[in-house]
């Protein structure tokens, strides 16, 4: 595991998952799923701004923003996924909570294998986890592009 660059919020989420047995990890993922915030109105009205994630089984889309507060650039991550797709919603919600407020450099430095370290492979299957890995990879790429532009 490549831990050096992992921000505290993502460390805490991982510790929460790994402290549970496999069945309860699913319940925690369901809680995340229920906590996924609505996409802000300015994006909800313009879904074409959101980037689709075809690697997920459900129609899911996201957008990252960089906002400067207290002189420091901060990342916000918004995602939309239908209620009938709780697994994808759970993945998106983990990233929404784990990425929110990080600096762009911190986001870019998140190890790409983070989703594989949550102990979810036995709970949801490795194939389904690919959707979350893709979501993280795309979010990192989008933030890197915003930094460069």
């Amino acid at each position, binding site marked *: 595991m490549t831990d050096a660059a992992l921000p505290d919020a993502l460390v805490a989420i991982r510790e929460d998952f790994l402290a549970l047995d496999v069945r309860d990890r699913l319940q925690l993922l369901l809680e995340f799923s229920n906590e996924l915030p609505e996409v802000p109105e300015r994006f909800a009205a313009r879904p074409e701004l959101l980037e689709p994630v075809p690697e997920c*089984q459900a129609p899911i889309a996201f957008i990252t923003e960089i906002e400067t507060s207290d002189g420091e650039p901060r990342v916000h991550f918004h995602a939309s996924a239908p209620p*009938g797709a709780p697994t994808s919603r759970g993945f998106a919600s983990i990233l929404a909570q784990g990425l929110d407020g990080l600096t762009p450099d911190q986001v870019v430095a998140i190890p790409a294998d983070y989703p594989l370290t949550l102990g979810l492979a036995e709970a949801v299957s490795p194939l389904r986890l690919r959707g979350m890995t893709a979501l993280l990879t795309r979010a990192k790429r989008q933030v890197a592009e915003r930094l460069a532009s």
Partner: protein
Amino acid sequence: MPVAVDDTEPKFAEYAHPERLVSTSWLAEHLGEPGLVVVESDEDVLLYETGHIPGAVKIDWHLDLNDPLVRDYVDGEGFARLLGSRGISRDTTIVLYGDRSNWWAAYALWVFSLFGHPDVRLLDGGREKWVAEGRELTISSPDVAPVPYPVVPREDGAIRAFKEDVLEHLGNPLVDIRSPQEYTGERTHMPDYPEEGALRGGHIPTARNVPWARAVAEDASFRPRAELEGIYGDGGDGSGLGLGADDSIITYCRIGERSSHTWFVLTHLLGIPDVRNYDGSWTEWGNAVRVPIVKGAEPGLAPVR
């Protein structure tokens, strides 16, 4: 004690094997009956936890039915452990239901059939219809008392085809269940689905393309027999596939789940005895070395042997 067959639906009576389906209203009335176990099997692994039919247990294709190492299904011992742990014995009536018009439920039914479980049925319309009708859902886990289930060897021969069987079969009817874009080779995976990595796009020579969803009405239930005959039979005017009871048929898709749905239609609703599902499907065929494929909208010709 055997659980009665649902004889309340006139539509079912027209099917070849009406005992393989139950309606939502029949299930609502029979919930909790001794000898009946309801099983939810979904694409989304968390959907069951968001609310399920009262008393239903969960079986997940990825986690429960697959062998974790070999690309294959569990063996007789694994199957016995799984079903016993869900309170299912060999004489239990199983009713399967799930999301996406029962794709994964039909897949589970097909796998259960590899082990010859005698009485396994689908809930017509699946989870969608049950939810749309505002029927009861619960998040509480059922109290399941494990029961013994015998170790029955899996019998792949009759309803499962391997790559070698498909090569041998060429010249006989093949039904490709995927989207038209996957069939022609424009794309190698389903829109909005994980890329499962096929190196070649196209279809197995001579396969005809009938996307699985054509068998399903808007409320996710199966179309009446006459409409199914129109699609898979001669269509009255030759517009259908022309399949009949004397044909030997193989169905396939991407990983074998959508084609289980069509396998169910051909086998249990239309009563065609010799239908096999090729679960290796395009993720195997599209990557296999030196197997013939055809690109484009035409079925193509069987290679000369």
